[in-house]
């Protein structure tokens, strides 16, 4: 049984159908890459899963539970984490404080009022900062970080959150080649334990991490399969025509 299942999902923005009958299913422990030309609806698809955008029609099932149009925090509590295309961290808080927000259990108001800081979470926090190379920045405000570092911080926030299903929207945008490679290694470690859905334009990166690739076009699923099949697929080639070839998109 699939961990995540989208059936005939439709999203429209004042009449414009950004997603028009999308079907997608992702298995537990899988790392699924979602690609497609600009405006294909990739971000919107992730938005629907995490509750940011309402769906007009269709179903989104997560672990056999309907989550379409649920509130964001309820979906997050079920174990869905999200990284945004424009990296979103808490700019006024320090890196350490950001990570503390990310270590989100418990979620309730009163348990967070009376709860004590545990030494265990402090250790985890520093380990996470080391993992993403931000150990020296722990006490700096997040607004000091470079674009690449901000991306890393948001990835670390998702690791802190320890979500079962992690939705990543263009995680390597603005990263150097070496950083991108490091991200690929990290994702390869994560798959299995976590289920990942990664939206990416960088095909080199996709090649490093992807098992199965889903290609979206004009709000629908165009093709699905291993990267070599996808690259040979004539429909995919046609979809990418206006925006360059898929191999260098």
């Amino acid at each position, binding site marked *: 049984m699939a961990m995540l299942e989208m059936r005939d999902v439709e999203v429209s923005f004042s009449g414009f159908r950004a997603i028009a009958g999308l079907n997608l299913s992702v298995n537990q422990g899988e790392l699924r890459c979602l690609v497609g030309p600009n405006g294909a609806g990739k971000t919107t698809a992730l938005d629907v899963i995490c509750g940011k955008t309402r769906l007009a029609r269709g179903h989104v099932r997560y672990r056999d539970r309907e989550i379409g149009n649920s509130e964001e925090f309820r979906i997050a509590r079920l174990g869905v984490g999200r990284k*945004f295309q424009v990296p979103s961290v808490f700019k006024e808080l320090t890196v350490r*404080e950001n990570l503390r927000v990310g270590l*989100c259990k418990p979620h309730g108001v009163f348990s967070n009022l009376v709860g004590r800081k545990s030494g265990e979470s402090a250790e985890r926090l520093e380990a996470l900062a080391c993992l993403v190379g931000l150990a020296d920045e722990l006490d700096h405000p997040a607004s000091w970080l470079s674009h690449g570092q901000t991306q890393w911080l948001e990835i670390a926030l998702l690791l802190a959150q320890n979500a079962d299903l992690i939705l990543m929207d263009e995680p390597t945008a603005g990263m150097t080649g070496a950083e991108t490679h490091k991200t690929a290694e990290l994702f390869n470690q994560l798959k299995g334990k976590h289920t990942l859905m990664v939206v990416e334009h960088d095909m080199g990166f996709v090649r490093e991490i992807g098992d199965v690739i889903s290609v979206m076009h004009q709000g629908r699923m165009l093709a699905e399969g291993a990267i070599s099949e996808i690259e040979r697929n004539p429909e995919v080639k046609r979809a990418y025509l206006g925006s360059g070839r898929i191999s260098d998109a």
Partner: protein
Amino acid sequence: MTDTNSMRWRLTGYVLFCVIILVFPYILNNDYLLNKYARYLIFGVLSAALSFSWGYTGILNLGQAVSFGLGSYAMAMALKLRTIPIQTGAGGLPDFMVWNNVKALPWFWEPFHSYTFAVFAGLGIPMLLAFVLGWFMFRGRITGVFVAIITLAMLVVINLVIVDQQKYTGGFNGITDLSTFKAFGVGFDAYSLSTYYLVAGTLCVVLLGGLAITRTKLGLILQAIRDDENRVRYFGYDVASYQNFAFTLSAGVAGFAGMLYTLVMEFASPTFLSVQLSLSIVIWCAVGGRGSLLGAALGAILVTGVQGNLSESPTFLDTWMLIMGAIFIIVVLFLPNGLISLAEKGVRLLKHKSARETATHPVAGAAIATFDSKRVRES
């Protein structure tokens, strides 16, 4: 600068301030002035409460005076029922009701025969009101300027109702000629030391308790909400509950301040829940530094203190409002984080200096210097 380090400085500042206001009566033994300073300290409580919802959580509540006024009326109602003689007619009626031809004490006045009830009402009614309003606003994802407009509208409505219902509320005149509050065998006369200490003690508890809350995980999440409330939701936090917690707690503190204000002023008046007062609280907070409870409290004390002295001095009789306005504009333009940011800068400079003295290696010294200038630029 590590987190715990800056916390030590902050705590020192808070404790120092508390000690000063607690020993103050020993320096200044003057009943009239004590009463005046007690008033300023109450404004400090009110301003700190706003800093908690506005500065920490990003909820600009322009109806803060509603909580303050309701607290004040709750206390005044209880004290009115204790005045001897409370009535000019039969049946134990407050004088203004007799003048308005009210025949019997209204049902909602009855429970105010009990001090305990009055104190709970002074806290509970503002909190309940805030909670219900907050529930609708925050569940409905209303933010920013719309929260300000809604809270302001509520203030205007409640103010109108109180002025309009003269029979039950004393209308424009408010509730006057009150008896003295007594609890645990202590009388709280407006000009007494006990009242001053009640007020100063409250401010200490609010500041230190508030600081403790901002240090919890909850306090951190409130600040994260201020920063980017939508991002917080995707970690599974129910943002509306957190916002409502801050909003309601702040209302409770303001309600308590209102009760104290009745003790100090010896009356309750619709001006206590006026638009003017509500906007003044915002100004105090902004001048002192809304991001700091102590800063906000100091801002209130400073602004109302200067205002009181200027308006009483014959030289500034015509110009004091102008001067206050100018001070406000200058501070907001040049110190967006309020006057408290000056103190923070001072602490940083001090540390910079000591860091330079300890730095033996020139490169290390330079590194610290650039680090510090980065920080100064940041704030």
